[in-house]
């Protein structure tokens, strides 16, 4: 079915007074990026709710490991 659904959230526990957030993230891993993206979305949402700051930003940058020197030497 298009467009595909890559992720969903089930909220098990979310309480501002106890600051307790247990959320289950279901992922469609046919997209290689969802394992990083969808948790990141809900992390930012939780942090905004928990801090009470709707402008709070939690930026994450994924940097790949460098290519092995052994492969470079072959070139």
């Amino acid at each position, binding site marked *: 079915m298009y467009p595909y659904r890559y992720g969903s959230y089930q909220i*098990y526990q979310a*309480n501002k007074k106890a600051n307790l957030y247990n959320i289950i993230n279901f992922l469609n891993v046919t997209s290689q990026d969802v394992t990083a993206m969808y948790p990141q979305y809900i992390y930012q*949402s939780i942090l905004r709710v928990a801090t009470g700051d709707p402008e709070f930003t939690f930026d994450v940058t994924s940097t790949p490991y460098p290519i092995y020197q052994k492969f470079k030497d072959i070139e």
Partner: protein
Amino acid sequence: MLVKDGDSSQNSDEEKGAYDARLEDITQEGNLIRGSSCVRSCTASSAKRFIIYRRDWCGLICQVLIPLILVLFGLWLTSGPSKLTQSPPRHLSTGWYPSKQRILMSTNPVSMAGDGFDVTGAELFANMPNATTAFEVTYVDI
């Protein structure tokens, strides 16, 4: 084959001794294979395998030649120049997906404290990055 004849029923000591000696000889003949070294066993197994391969060319090709060729081909591939390039750092953002992402979200937490501080799914969704432009949410009661 050891067979007692009708005269052995006399159970004389002489006949009994002869019978035991013959039995001992037969037992020793059956253990001739004992005492062979590891090298001899391996040599014999290799010779046997070689004889079987001489009769079975298809087996030789499928079990030896083709695997050998594939291994050499794999080694040749890995020794060639690499086409790997360094990827740039990637900032996690909703913009990597071209269209709105369809998501399901609980309407309310499964385990609610009931003290008025429970966070609903709508509140969490509203605080997601680019919530209105990047997502299309469907609330479900689980």
